């Protein structure tokens, strides 16, 4: 099958890739572009570990074709920190023990990033609904909710 040339913005930088149409965006990000922060859990659009930001919306990159990112704007967990300074969400996940094994964390962080952009001052209930597409097998979620809340407060006061 002939490969197609695509280009898009990845964490603010232009990137190119040569892809088969059947390749999924998560595979191209991890394997070709070398950013392995975005994880693959279920590959069936259930777990949210592969969540990225595509054109300003959270999506599950295991269920988007790489072709569909052509000309688009993608942000992954690697785009959160600013020159080595952690994003308030990353700080808050550390402070509030929002992770244990860390497998779900990149998806949680990048989802929480977009969620707080759209709802900067959420209630606990809104955080639960907003984060409901991301599964965690370790934490029991309480500390994740606390971390998102703490980050929201910090970002509000900044």
């Amino acid at each position, binding site marked *: 099958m002939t490969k197609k040339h695509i280009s898009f913005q990845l964490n603010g930088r232009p990137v190119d890739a040569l892809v088969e149409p059947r390749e*999924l965006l998560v595979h191209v990000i991890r394997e070709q572009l070398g950013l392995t922060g975005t994880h693959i859990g279920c590959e069936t*659009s259930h777990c949210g570990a592969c*969540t990225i930001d595509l054109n300003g919306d959270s999506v599950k990159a295991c269920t988007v074709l790489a072709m569909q990112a052509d000309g688009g704007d993608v942000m992954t967990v690697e785009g959160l920190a600013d020159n080595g300074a952690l994003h308030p969400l990353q700080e808050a996940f550390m402070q509030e023990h929002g992770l244990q094994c860390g497998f779900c964390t990149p998806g949680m962080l990048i989802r929480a990033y977009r969620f707080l952009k759209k709802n900067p001052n959420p209630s606990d209930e809104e955080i639960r609904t907003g984060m409901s597409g991301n599964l965690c097998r370790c934490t029991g979620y309480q500390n994740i909710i606390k971390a998102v809340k703490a980050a929201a407060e910090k970002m509000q006061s900044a």
Partner: protein
Amino acid sequence: MIPSEFEYHAPHSVAEAITLLTQYPEEARLLAGGHSLLPMMKLRFAEPAHLIDINGIKELKGISEQGNVIRIGAMTTESELIDSALLNEKCPLIPAVARLIADPQVRNRGTIGGDIVHGDPGNDHPAVMLALDARFILQGPEGERTVPANGFFLGTYSVGMAADEILTAILVPVFASSTGYGFNKLKRKTGDFATAASSVVVQLQGESCADIRIALTNAGPCAFRAEAAEDLLKGQVITDALIEQAAQKVMAACEPDEDLRGDAEYKTHMSAEMARRSIRDALTKAKG
């Protein structure tokens, strides 16, 4: 896990997409949100040789009011339905249903058109369309036709449209006064399809029921209306006793498959319970 090989097309107009569909009969499939189709392609349940991505077709997007009808472009996402001020004001049943479909990420991609056409008995919009008495605009090589939702859902993965047709828009009526809706969905957890769900729209004339539509999700091979239950309530002042009789008629109409969500008997009872609650909610809103 990736799909088998296909050629990818990204048309910019409905006409272009239809040309592609007629060019590759039997071999082409439309890609909308991809949240039913791509998982099926990964599992080789679907192996189209040509994939026609309709996400770049602007004319398939958007929600607008046209007289007492709201027109919803087929490529409108669940998130856009939830955020639509127009729908929340004039047809709030649709955002209420969209809020309970899947999760935020899936709702950013999944479209109302894909949900209607896909044909999984667990899809929520088909029953909503039946309850609303919606109409669908289909476009094909011979032009455009408008068909009622009633009669469109034929069976599992089977709807009343040809392989070279595209669903372009959905027409739903603006809620009139004295009209109310109810939607209740039982699911095991976020991201799961309904164990049972029911959508009801009722119109009152004074105290009595002028019209009612009771539709069910995942209670048979496809979404359907419990017409015997509707007939029992039409023209009546709806009492608790009548709702109970209607619930029995709903149960008689259900034929769900047994799966991990429960056996047929359990699902049948839950379908009736969702219908009871939706009838009560619809009445309260209609009186409101």
